[in-house]
């Protein structure tokens, strides 16, 4: 068994695609129309085109709002991505206008930072020690 796909709920799929590709640097993998306006929209890391896909899932379901808003309220990230160097990535994203709710912080064996994906979620990036 392996993790093939995971998802984040996004307010607006087109906006999410722009943020996740142009700002974060993922690449689009699948974009299939589903229903009237929704898309099966996934992105992957350019380093691992055949790796785990991230589904940018429409946030229309009524349960989603409470779930996401409550997590954001407490500052809890919804997903975590690995980066080579959290500090470097923090500076790169900050310069692109990304809003961080937690600056890079050494937490025992890992360094983490948390930012707003502008689509309704907080995302954590982390670097493991060398």
């Amino acid at each position: 068994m392996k993790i093939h796909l995971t998802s984040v709920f996004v307010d607006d799929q087109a906006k999410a695609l722009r943020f996740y590709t142009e700002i974060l640097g993922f690449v689009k993998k699948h974009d299939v129309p589903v229903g009237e306006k929704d898309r099966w929209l996934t992105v992957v890391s350019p380093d691992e085109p055949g790796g785990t896909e991230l589904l940018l899932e429409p946030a229309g379901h009524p349960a989603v709002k409470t779930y996401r808003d409550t997590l954001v309220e407490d500052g809890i990230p919804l997903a975590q991505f690995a980066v080579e160097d959290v500090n470097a990535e923090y500076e790169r994203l900050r310069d692109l206008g990304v809003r961080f709710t937690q600056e890079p912080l050494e937490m025992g064996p890992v360094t983490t930072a948390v930012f707003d994906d502008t689509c309704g979620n907080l995302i954590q990036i982390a670097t493991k020690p060398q």
Partner: protein
Amino acid sequence: MADDLFRALADPTRRTILDELTEKSGQTLFEICARLSMKHQLGISRQAVSQHLAVLEAAGLVETRREGRYKFHDLNTAPLRQITERWLVPDASEPEESAP
């Protein structure tokens, strides 16, 4: 004199929270919880941390602010001055004013 202040400071976990806010003011509940567990090996629940923060806030040592969708906790050390003012002893090293 505010009993709330002494009650807030009497708990070691709350003092640790203040230590961490001294290092960086303006943290989300998530960051405070992460610091307590990762840096101090304090495995306490979010609810417990939230209650500790409420006690600190009641004593005026922590203030919260909202920025859009986020809530940050800031340190306010102003109430601590009451302690020094209450038991302030004149500094012995100060030169005494004496007649020549």
